[in-house]
C-alpha cells in the first residue's frame, strides 16, 4: 500500500515553503508561520505525514503557505474535518489553524467538542480581535468599545475569554503566546505538538491594518510587558509553592481571569486518554472477540440472523 521507500531526507524550511503568503506586510501571522517551520525542522516529522487544515479567514490561508498535504475547508469547520483525519489516520500529524472568528464564533461549538473528546491534533489560533478578511467587523474577542464597521459607536457585547473557554471545554493542553515573541512561540508550539491529545495555542497576532497596536501591552518593545508563567519545578523549594501547577484546572482559570494582557505560557496540561486511543481500543477488543473473519463472512452471518 504505502510506497515511501525513498531515502530519509532532512526536512528543511525550504522544503516546507510553498506560496508566498498573501498576508499584509507586518501581519503577525508571518511570525507564526516561520515559527511553525522551525519547529517542524527541529522535530523532523516525515514530510508526507504533515497535514495542515484550516477554515476561512486571513490566518486560515495557512495551508497554502505550507508545502504539505493540506485542506482549505469551509468557515468554522476546520476542527471537525481535522477530527476525521486524525481519527482515521493515526500515522499523520494533524494541524489545524484559524482565527478568532473561525474558531470562537462560527466554529465555537466544534472547539468545545473537539476539546472534550480530546482528539489528537494541534490547533493554533491566531487571534487578532477583529475580522480582517472581511475588512473590520467586530469579532468575538473584540474588546467592549472597539469601533468597527458593524459597531461604529463601539462594540457593546462582552468578548469571550478564549483561555477560559478552552480550559472549560476540556482541551488537554492550553497555552497562550504572542506573535512577536518567536522564541516563546516556538517553545509552546513544540510542547503542543508533542502533547498527546487536543492541544491548543492561542497566539495574539496583530492585524496591522484593522486593529494596529492592540497587542502592544504584551510587547516589551512597544512599552508593554511579556509576563511569562512561572511553572512549578517540583523542587521542594519555598518559591515553588507560588509557581503555577499546569495540571491544576482552578489555577488555569485564575490565570485566565487576569487583567489583559495577562500571562503567557502553558495554562493547563493534563494527561487523559484521547478519543483516538479509546476508539482504537474498542475496535481492537471487538475484533479480538470475533477473531479473523472476512468481510463476506461477517455480512453473511448478519444476513443469516435475519432469516
Amino acid at each position: 500500500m504505502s510506497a515511501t521507500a525513498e531515502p530519509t531526507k532532512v526536512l528543511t524550511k525550504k522544503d516546507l515553503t510553498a506560496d508566498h503568503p498573501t498576508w499584509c506586510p507586518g501581519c503577525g501571522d508571518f511570525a507564526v508561520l516561520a515559527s511553525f517551520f522551525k519547529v517542524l525542522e527541529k522535530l523532523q516529522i516525515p514530510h508526507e505525514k504533515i497535514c495542515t487544515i484550516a477554515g476561512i479567514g486571513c490566518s486560515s490561508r495557512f495551508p497554502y503557505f505550507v508545502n504539505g498535504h493540506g485542506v482549505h475547508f469551509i468557515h468554522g469547520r476546520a476542527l471537525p474535518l481535522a477530527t476525521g483525519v486524525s481519527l482515521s489516520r493515526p500515522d499523520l500529524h494533524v494541524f489545524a489553524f484559524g482565527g478568532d472568528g473561525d474558531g470562537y464564533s462560527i466554529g465555537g461549538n466544534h472547539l468545545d467538542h473537539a476539546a472534550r473528546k480530546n482528539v489528537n491534533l494541534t490547533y493554533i489560533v491566531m487571534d487578532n480581535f477583529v475580522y480582517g478578511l472581511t475588512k473590520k467587523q467586530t469579532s468575538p474577542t473584540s474588546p467592549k468599545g472597539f469601533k468597527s464597521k458593524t459597531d461604529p459607536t463601539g462594540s457593546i457585547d462582552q468578548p469571550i475569554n478564549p483561555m477560559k473557554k478552552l480550559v472549560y471545554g476540556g482541551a488537554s493542553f492550553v497555552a497562550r503566546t504572542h506573535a512577536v515573541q518567536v522564541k516563546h512561540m516556538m517553545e509552546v508550539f513544540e510542547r503542543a505538538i508533542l502533547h498527546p491529545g487536543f492541544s491548543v495555542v492561542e497566539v495574539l497576532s496583530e492585524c496591522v491594518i484593522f486593529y494596529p497596536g492592540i497587542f502592544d501591552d504584551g510587547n516589551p518593545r512597544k512599552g508593554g510587558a511579556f509576563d511569562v508563567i512561572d511553572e512549578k519545578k517540583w523542587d521542594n523549594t519555598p518559591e515553588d509553592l507560588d509557581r503555577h501547577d499546569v495540571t491544576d484546572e482552578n489555577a488555569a482559570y485564575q490565570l485566565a481571569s487576569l487583567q489583559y494582557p495577562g500571562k503567557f505560557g502553558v495554562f493547563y496540561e493534563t494527561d487523559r486518554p484521547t478519543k483516538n486511543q479509546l476508539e482504537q481500543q474498542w475496535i481492537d477488543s471487538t475484533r479480538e472477540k470475533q477473531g479473523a473473519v472476512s468481510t463476506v463472512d461477517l455480512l453473511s452471518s448478519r444476513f443469516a440472523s435475519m432469516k
Partner: protein
Amino acid sequence: MSQSVTSDSPETSKRPSANAEGVTELQDAVIRFAGNSQDGIQTIGGFLARLAGRSSREVMTYMTIPSTISGGASIFQVHLGSGEVLSAGDDADFLFAFYQHSYDSHIGSLRPGGICIYDSDHVEVIKTDADVIHVGVPITTTTVEAIGGSARDRGKNLFVLGLVTQIFKLNKAKIVSLVERQLGRKSEDVLRNAMLAFDAGFAYPVGDLMGLEFDLKQGKIQGADKVTTDGNTALTLGLLAGGVRYGAAYPITPWSTIMEQLRVELPKYGGLFVQAEDELAAVSIALGFAYSGHTAVTGSSGPGLSLKMEALSYATMAELPIVVINVQRGGPSTGLPTSVEQSDLMQAIYGSHGDCPRIVLAPQNVGDCFYIAVEACELARKYSCPVIVLTDQALASRIEAFAQPDLAAFVYEPVLDQATRGEDFKPYPLDGLTRHAPPGSAMAGGKYPVVTGLEHDEWGHPSGNPTMHSRMTQRRREKIKDFGKTLPLPEVFGDATGEVLIVGWGSSWGPIRESVMRMREQGRKAAAIHLRHLNPMPNSLDTIFAHYDHVIVVEMNDEGIYGYGQLATLLRSRYCDSKIKSVCKTDGLNYKIREIIERVGSLINPA
C-alpha cells in the same frame, strides 16, 4: 384477501368462503394490529414477517410509531402472501384491536366482510356494521392468568401471536424457534413468560368463536430462506458491503437506526462511526474521512440535510467522494417526523449554493436499499463527488422479505492508496477523472496538494481566472453527465404502448406496480417506469413517453405553485412535454392502490 376457493363473482365477494372441510384457503392476508407503542405489536409483526421469509411467502409490513417517547397509539400491518406482495394492502382483512381507541380508529380500515378480533377486556363493540365479523377475546385477563397473575399485562403481544399462529395454521415450531432465538438472549424469565402467553393464545378456542378456519397457502417457490428486514438495516449492510469503513452523523428520526447500527458494526470491520455534535460537524468529519482516503458516509433526514448543504457544495468543488443518506420524512421544518414524504428531491439535487452537480439515487424497495447503497459507494469513488441516497420513512421501518444478495459479487474491500505520486500528478485534470493523493502519499515532484473550496486549476491551486472557472464548472458538470450516459433506460412494466405510463421513484414502487397490474386487469393499456437514478436521470426517457397518450408522475410531495410535483417539474423542464402530468399528495401516508388508480383515472378522463 383473495381466496383460492371463491364464490361465483370473485371481484365482489365479501366473505371468505370455505372448502368442503370448512377451511378457507388464503392466497394472502392483510392483518392489522392496533394498540399502543409499548404493547410490542411491532414484535408480533416482526415474527410474522420473518416466518413468511422462511416459508417462501412474500411479505410487506407497514407501521406507524408515535413520535413521542412514552407510548401513544401505534399500528403494525402485515401483508402476507403466497404470491407477489407489492404493497402493505389497502384494507385489512383482519384487525386485532387492543383498546377502545384502537378499535374506534381502525375498524374503518377493515374491508367489508373482514374479521375484527378485539380485547373484550378493553373494547366495547358498536355492533352497527353487520359486514364485519366481531370476535371478542379477553386478551388482557387471559394473558395475565397465563403468566401467573402478576397483574401486569406485558405479554399480550405473544398471546396474540399465539392466536394468529392458530388462526392461520402457521408453522408453530418455526414461530417458537424464532421467539426463542430473539427472546432467549434476554433472561430465562422473559422467555418463559413469553412462551406461557404464546401457548395460551395458541390454545384459546378462537376458531370456534369465529366459526371459520383459515389456511394461508405456502409460497410456490421453495428456495433458500429469504432475508426479512427493514430498509434501514438493508441500507446499513449495503454501505458495509460497498466499502464504507468510516462515517459520522447526528441523531435524527428516521435516520438514527442506520447510525446506531453503523456505530456497532463498523468496529468489526476495523472502521469507526462517530456521533458528531451537530449536522455541520457530522458532514465535516465525514469529509475528513473522505479526504484521508476512505469511503465515508454521513446521513440524516430532511432538516439535517439542509444543514449539511454548505459542506456538500465544498465536496462538489473539492471533488471529494462522500455518500450521504437522507431518510426523507414529512416537511417542511420539523414537519411530520414519523411520516413518509418524498419532498426532498429538489433539495437533494439543487439544495446547495453555486452550480453544484452531484449524484442522487433512490431505492425502490427494502432489498434495493442494499443495492443502491453499494452503488452509491462505487459512484462516489469513481466520480469523486457527493452521492445522495433518498430513501424515506416508509422504507426505513417497513419489513420485506428478499433473496440474500450474492455477497461475493458485491463486497468491496477498501484499499488506502498511498503510493508516491509522480511528478506529473494533477488532481483535477481537465481531460480526465479526479485523482486524489490522500495525506501520507509522498509527492515525487516535491510539491504537495492543498484541497480547496476556492476555484482552482488542474493542480488544485486557487485560481480566479474567468476561463478557468468556466472550464472547471464544465468539468464538474460533464462527469455527472457522462455517468448519465451509462445509465440504461428503465424497465417498462406493463404494456409497451398504450393509454398511460406512470412514472414513479422511491418507496412507491410496489403500490405503482400493483396499480398497473389492476388497471391492466380492468382492460386498460397501462405501464410504469421507476427511476432509481434521479440526478442524472437516464437519457432518452422521451422515447418511452412517446408510446403513451399520458405520462403521469406519481409522487408523495406537493404539486407546488405551478401544479406539478418535484419529479414531474424536472421531467417537464427536461422534455418540454405537456402530456407529463402530476399526481401528488401530502397526507404522510403511503399510496393505496385504489388511490393511484382513481387519481390517474381522473387525470386521463376528467369529469
